[in-house]
């Protein structure tokens, strides 16, 4: 199985250059059955990443561009009268990988329709409940720059994303390679899946079986506890965040080819799991929220 994962990573890295760590995190997020939020500027490869992952895993892929006039029905689908009877026209949410682009441009009503579907893995239209496909995975993107007419996701909604990533600009070498290389869309089109959806489900099923020792639980709990008592955040991490952190660390260990979770695994996924859930009381000059989270890690001893 690791063989498949390695090939997937290798292929993805060939498309998105210089972002090994983020790709690994995104993969761990998928394996942990979590949804992913990417907060970054336009044009750094968010869509390409989502598309590539879907393609490599052999999953079908829908992209929804969120706009301020997007309605819930535009996502979920609607019942329409056609040929003398009512039929349900499924919306773009009925796909295995859904890319919700610029989710903060839609109204809260539309946003919550997406998030509810994400949470329940099913949608209800006209009293009829329809299951979403399995595997199902949402990649939402958010433009961090405050713009007129946007609705940033509220904290309670942010908590539903297992991870929040920033891609960032590629480094010089990667960028040169990118500029010299082929058109990314060409590569994407030619991409062949390295696994089947069934294989993905099998791997996902393995994640909870990655061993978690007593010592690691102690460490993880200390981290959660510290986020609550350190006094820097409006709220500490919730138990749901703790469970997510554990699952993500297990997935990370699996991607790394190990059978037990190490403190390092927790540390690797911690910034992306915790940062969007923690809101500093005071924004300190020159410190990004990411830096805050890393400080938090440095304050808790590994037992």
């Amino acid at each position, binding site marked *: 199985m690791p063989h498949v994962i390695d090939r997937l990573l290798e292929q993805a890295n060939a498309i998105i250059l210089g972002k090994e760590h983020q790709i690994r995190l995104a993969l761990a997020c998928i394996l942990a059955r979590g949804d992913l939020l990417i907060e970054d500027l336009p044009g750094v490869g968010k869509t390409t990443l989502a598309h590539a992952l879907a393609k490599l895993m052999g999953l079908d892929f829908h992209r929804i561009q969120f706009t301020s006039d997007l309605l819930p029905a535009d996502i979920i689908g609607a019942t329409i009268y056609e040929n003398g009877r009512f039929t349900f026209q499924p919306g773009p949410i009925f796909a295995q990988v859904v890319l919700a682009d610029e989710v903060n441009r839609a109204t809260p009503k539309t946003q919550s329709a997406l998030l509810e579907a994400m949470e329940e893995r099913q949608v209800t239209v006209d009293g009829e409940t329809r299951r979403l496909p399995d595997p199902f995975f949402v990649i939402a993107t958010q433009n961090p720059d405050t713009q007129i007419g946007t609705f940033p996701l509220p904290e309670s909604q942010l908590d539903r994303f297992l991870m929040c990533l920033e891609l960032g600009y590629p480094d010089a070498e990667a960028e040169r390679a990118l500029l010299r290389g082929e058109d990314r869309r060409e590569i994407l089109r030619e991409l062949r899946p390295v696994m089947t959806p069934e294989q993905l489900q099998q791997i996902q099923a393995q994640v909870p079986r990655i*061993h978690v*020792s007593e*010592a*690691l639980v102690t460490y993880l709990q200390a981290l959660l506890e*510290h986020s609550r*008592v*350190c*006094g*820097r955040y409006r709220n500490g991490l919730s138990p749901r965040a703790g469970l997510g952190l554990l699952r993500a660390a297990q997935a990370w260990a699996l991607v790394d080819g190990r*059978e*037990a*979770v*190490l*403190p*390092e695994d927790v*540390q690797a996924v911690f910034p992306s799991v915790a940062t969007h859930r923690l809101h500093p009381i005071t924004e300190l000059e020159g410190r990004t929220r990411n830096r805050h989270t890393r400080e938090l*890690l*440095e*304050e*808790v*001893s*590994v*037992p």
Partner: protein
Amino acid sequence: MSRPRLDPLLPTTTLAAMLLTLAAIAVPHALRLPFWISLLALACGGWRYLRAVRGESLPPTWLRVLLTVTVVGGIYAHYDTLLGLEAGTALLVSMTALKLLEMRARRDTHVVLYLGFLLIGMQFLFSQTLPNLIYLIVSVWAMLMLLISAHRATGHGKPWQYARLSGALVLQAIPVAAVLFLLFPRVSGPLWRMPDEGHAQTGLSDTMSPGSVSQLSQSDAVAFRVEFDGDIPPPSQRYWRALVLTHYDGYTWSRMTPRTPPPQLDHVPVEHAYDILLEPHGQQWLPALEMATRAGNEIGLTALYELRSRNPLDERLNYRLRSSPHYRLQAELPPNLRQAYLMLPDASAKQAKELAQKWRADSNDPRDILRRARDYFVQREFVYTLSPPRLPRDPVDQFLFETQRGFCEHYAGAFAVLMRAAGVPARVVTGYQGGELNPIGEYLIVRQSDAHAWVEIWMDGEGWLRIDPTAWVSPNRIEQGLASALPAGEPIPFLARPDSGLLKALELRWDALNNGWNRWVLGYNPSLQRSVLSRLGLDNLFYTALALAASIALIVLTLTLILLLQGRRRGFDPLAAAYERFCRKLARAGLERRHHEGPADFARRVVAARPDLAEPVRAITKLYIDARYGAATPSDAPRKLRRLITTFRP
């Protein structure tokens, strides 16, 4: 080898607060310590602060060891010992300061803070006054605040939250302390010897010469305080006898105690019962309201009917007396003693002797002689003053016939000489006269400014009678106190003035508070405890309760110990301990594991820095990770790990 950078153990503001609080706690000690220790402590604190601000590492071990050895040597050189209260305090203060230099982990912070608490407590071994208690409570409050913020992982928090929390803790502790104070069995006498404060002698001395009492009158320090059971006697009866002076050498009156048992005292039983709380004066005399009829066993009674303590008074003394203003002391005087009370030096007071002999020639009756003497003082222009002219030649003659200005010691001395010359046995008594009623608490404050001298003359069949010639000249001195008796412009001590307004009222309030503290807290001895407990109805219960409390305490202690030991065993992880040792070995080689660093990351870092160690480090780390975090821990893993680490030589 580069020493690791200082971890941000405490935010610099917390560190600064901690250093300042420690300094405030050490200041009262510093007043008693050799100068260089205070300097050292200041230097250590400053050094530690600068290092923290600049993020530099702490001084190396050899320097700290060197400093410690030097300081201990210095203290030994200064005190000739390392034991005892003074040397112990010096040691504690300097070691606390030096500990600052190795304060790198949270544990060290706690050690420093606990040392601070110890320093606060030690302050009480030196002084137990009420202001000191307030100082103690404030210090404890500040220290608790620091302890709380040091316990909080990051120290990020609102200072006032810590202040409120520690304030609540202090307030919660006060009732517990009060109950323990009341109920905890007292032992008589202090558990430790209080430091000698140099046996400074204050108050009256064993001799009286012109100027000695008036000098005392310049001080408004409290001599003693008195609480009466019933009515307080009127000012004219408040004669506090302290010393009886029998011998006159022409200038100075001094004590010469005959080696005979105390004389017979007959009295009409009109009694005052009262407690005297005497401030330490480094001498043995004990004041008593004229005339004390009964005293406790620890108080001696001399042939002159003075009360004496066995040892010089270095501590405040509380004693209970009964006195009767109507008494007959020593109705019969043996001829040899009578002779002694008539002795005068030949060369001095010639004019006075002439005058007295003239009186005697007129009438042999001591009553007539006394009347003549009284008329003499009343009819002449005698002035009562604190600043009389100097009397270099003959104090009695010069005073009686030339200056006629004097303070009580002049009147008493001259009158006693006159009486002796006229054949009436006489002696000078020094003590205090008067005392101010503190309306808050209903007790008398007797100050040094109330010091007074008078005379006792002996009459056949009546014994010793108190005669106060000052009262003839200045009745106000006796009725209303020193201040109203002196002419305007005389230097009267501030608190002896009758009407000093608000400040005076505050002073009286403060004195009442202090009196209560001295009497009920510092003076809380076994007998007082018994009486308090019996008043609370706990008398019979006391020892049962004591036994009960002791057994409960024992049980709790045992349980705590058991739980602690169990906790240790449960918390002890042989794998973690072995790995700890591995990390220590690497730390000595300059590769310290950061406390938040996972084992795999650490191993990567070590291997990158020291490729030569790659093989053992990888093996140890793999074994450790597999055993500690893996699915199945082989039972021999700790042993294997220990063996690997024992042979590991970085």
